[in-house]
Structures are given as C-alpha cells and as structure tokens.
C-alpha cells in the first residue's frame, strides 16, 4: 500500500500552486510512459491465434490507452523545462525496463511467460497509479486537465476488467500461489515508482 501521506503532500502542493505546467508535465510524463508501455504490449499480443472474444478486449484496451495518451497530449500545459523529462525518465525507468523485458524478443506473442508478465504489469499500473486523491477539493472541476485525469482514471477501472478476467481465467500451468506472487511482485514495482513519483510531485 502506498503511504497516504505521500498523496496528502502532493495534493497540498497542488492546492498551494494549482496545476502548474510543471505539475501537469510531471503527471503526464508518468501516465504517458505507463500507457505507452501497456499499449505496446497490447499491440504485440492482439494477433495471438485462438484468442476469440479476448482479442476484442485487447484491441479495445490498446485503442483506449492510445486515446488516453492523446488526451493528455492535447490537454497538458507542457513545461519547457527539459530537466523535468530527464528526472521523469529516471523515476519511470523501472517501468520502462519492465516493459522492455516483456517486449524483448521473441516477444509476448511467442513467449507465454512474457505475455503473463504483460498482463500482471498492466494490472498493477491500472490498479495502483491513481491520481484522483491528489486533486484538491477546491480545484475548478471544469478545468480540462482535471477532467482528463478523472476520465482516464475512471477508464482505467473499466480497462482493468480485462486484466482481472485474464488473470483469473487464463490457461496456465503455474500454481495459483505462484501466479499471485507474480502479480504482487509487479504491484510492488509499480508502488515503488508511484511512491517516488508522488514525492517528486510534492517537491518544490
């Protein structure tokens, strides 16, 4: 579980200064990196043979992740400070690396373990990267960036259903305990990145 104090500090920072270009840029860098990783994975597995109805969910999630990235790209008031991108890349690096491992040749389409990892990593991202608690109560609810964050988070919950159903029903020889351990492992990874991100958001 992510320390609630980290959410409070990030929210207080935003309440004090508003959604400045720096704040928006930090948030969008994280979300875009996470969503690009998940979209890349979905683009890699959407033509797995015999997927049946699951293929539609995979294609749908791929499209919605791209939509979210596009929405963020359009609504973010981007900062011109290149150091933000550098620091953001450093914080997000564990996620970038994990998605790189999933996509490494021969790729998830031909590597069941990588495919399973892609699902657990996607689950962890959609479930644990939650930004609604950093939105201050007194912020303008019509602010386009706030609206975008809310829509993306609500959509994350819906998309998560694909990962939940796959994790529960996917045919694998891995024992249940091992599968749960893999899920938990990626949750810890995402929690680590997101905790550091929240601290960065709260920093001056």
């Amino acid at each position: 579980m992510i320390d609630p104090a980290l959410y409070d500090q990030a929210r207080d920072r935003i309440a004090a200064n508003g959604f400045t270009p720096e704040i928006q840029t930090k948030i969008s860098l994280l979300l875009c990196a996470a969503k690009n990783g998940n979209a890349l994975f979905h683009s890699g597995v959407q033509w797995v043979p015999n997927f049946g109805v699951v293929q539609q969910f995979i294609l749908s999630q791929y499209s919605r992740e791209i939509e979210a990235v596009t929405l963020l790209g359009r609504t973010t008031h981007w900062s011109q400070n290149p150091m933000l991108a550098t620091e953001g890349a450093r914080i997000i690096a564990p996620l970038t690396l994990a998605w790189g491992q999933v996509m490494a040749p021969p790729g998830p389409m031909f590597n069941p373990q990588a495919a399973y990892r892609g699902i657990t990593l996607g689950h962890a991202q959609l479930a644990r990267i939650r930004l609604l608690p950093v939105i201050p109560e007194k912020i303008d609810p019509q602010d386009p960036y706030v609206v975008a964050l809310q829509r993306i988070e609500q959509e994350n919950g819906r998309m998560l259903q694909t990962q939940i159903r796959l994790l529960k029903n996917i045919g694998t020889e891995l024992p249940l305990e091992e599968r749960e351990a893999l899920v938990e492992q990626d949750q810890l990874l995402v929690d680590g990145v997101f905790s550091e991100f929240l601290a960065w958001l709260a920093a001056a």
Partner: protein
Amino acid sequence: MPTIQYGHHQVNYELSGEAGRPVITFLNGLTQNANLWKTYAAHFVPRGYRVLAYDMLGQGRSSKPVIDIKLSMHADLLDHLLTELGIEKTHLASISFGGIVGLDFAIRYGKRLHSLTAMSTFAELTPQLDLLGAVMLQGLAEVGLPYLQSMLYPMNMSSDWIAANRERIPAMKRAGYIGNDAYAMQNLMESFVEFQPLTPALKKITVPTLVMNGEFDFFTPRECHETIRREIANSRLLIIQRAYHAFTLEMPEVTMRQIEIFLQQVESDTWQGDQSVWIAADDPTAETQWLPLAGDWNRAVQIAPPNGPSKAKRTTAAAPRRKSAPRKATS
C-alpha cells in the same frame, strides 16, 4: 502494525491489552479495515480484555489477492492467526462481510470461541441480497470504486449521520479510495459466486451467540438475522434502535455497551441463550439495557388489537367502514 504470514500472504494485525486476559477479536465489513476498531480497543482494554483486530485479506494493509480467494479462506486465516499469536480461544464480534466470516468460523472452528457476536450480517443470500450484491459488483466494475463508496454511505448510515457529516464525507471517501483497491473489493465480492448458504450448518454453532440488527437496516434486514436467531439454539437477537447497517461506526457507544453486557453474561455464566428477542436501550448509561420486545419483530408496523391498549394517539373518528353496495337501479 505487526504482520504474520499466511501462505504467501501478509496479514496486518493489532493486538492490544495484557497477555492472559480474555481476547475479543473484531472483524470488519467491506471497504473497512482494522483501524476502525481502535475506539473499541480503547473501550475494552481498560475493562480487562485484549482486543485483536486485523485487516482481512483484500483489505487495508494486508495482501490483496487478485486471482482467487475462497470465502472459506478468511475463517482458515483467523484460525491460523490465533495459533500464531498463541491465543487458544477468543470472543468474536463481527459485522457484515466479517459477520459471514464469523459465522463460518463458529461453524468450523467453534472450539476456539468463547462467544460470537454477529452484527448486520446474513447466513445466506436472500433474493434481495443476491440482486443488491450484483448491482454493487456491476457498479464497482463498470463505474468504479468512488461509485461504490457513494452507494455505501446511504446504505450504511442514517440521514441524521449523513446530514451531520456531509462536509466530512469527501475526505472520508478520499481516504477510503487511497486505502482500498477496487480489484481486491471485486475479488472479495466475486467470492460469493461459489457461496453456499451457511444456514443448514448454523445448528453446529453452540457457543453463546448474540445477533445484533439495526432497527432500520434495509441492507441486511430483519429476515437475515431472524434466520440466524432461529437456527442457533444458544442465541438471542438484539435490535439496535433507530440504527442502520453500520451501527458499529455510527453508534459505537451503544454497540460497545451491548457487547460488554453480553460478554459479562458469558463470563459470569449468567447468559441465557433462549432465542429471545430484545431491544437495546439507546442510552448506553441507562440502568436497564435490554428492553423486552412486544409484538412481531419481523414486522415494521404493529397492528393493535381492535380495542386493545395502544400508546399511539387514537383518533376519535370512527374507523372507515366499507360502504354498502350501491343500490340497484330500479326501472
């Protein structure tokens, strides 16, 4: 919070009070956690008890399985936790989702119990509960956790409480949103797919059992508690006046007082499990706490005998009578 391992799961718990004293274990409902029993620990520890509360799997800071969690696993976990902590027997007080776990534990691990307090709970899914559960699950999956949270406040709390706390609710929802994970809630709710009614096994519960139900609880209404009362011979049903589903949160003083009286009866061997029905005094300082009940406790209205005594103000007007049939038109 200290932790124990249960398989590959981590379970966070809080145990307060001196070793050697009788233990009360509290189990919470969905979207809640062990912290909510701190008030209860503060009440019972100075009164000579130890209080054990823990985050059930899928909640709070304990592990949150994604793939599978059988309903029966919760009772197995409690058995394991008690063993790990060196607690041979405990009093168990549980509410709502925790209440089902409490009943299951009492059925399968009854030897580890001194007593059972089952609050705002059920032993089987009535058709109403079945549909309500499906709607809650649908709302959680299709709209999200904030929707479920918004739905639960009016289902759990009274209008008075909501009016008094309206400004605090957004902050409480935010804390709940941070502390809970939608997928873990969903997993707990989906465990009901394989839920088999506990009703046929309730007769196996022989420990003193206090069943507590809010007067106005429309989430788990009287019929749910009546089933439990009827099937457990060593039980009593206690109705909490003007209470809704989450009376442990809304009326902690009243609830703690009732549990305290029950435990005193159990420990002094004065408990009479006779399946009788009582009403809890709404003043926890009142001398008489369990008030006798008149009438049918399964009804929301009480029909007075035609000329019998009634506290209700009687109208002086004559009772409406059926009009005589219209006369046939004569030609």
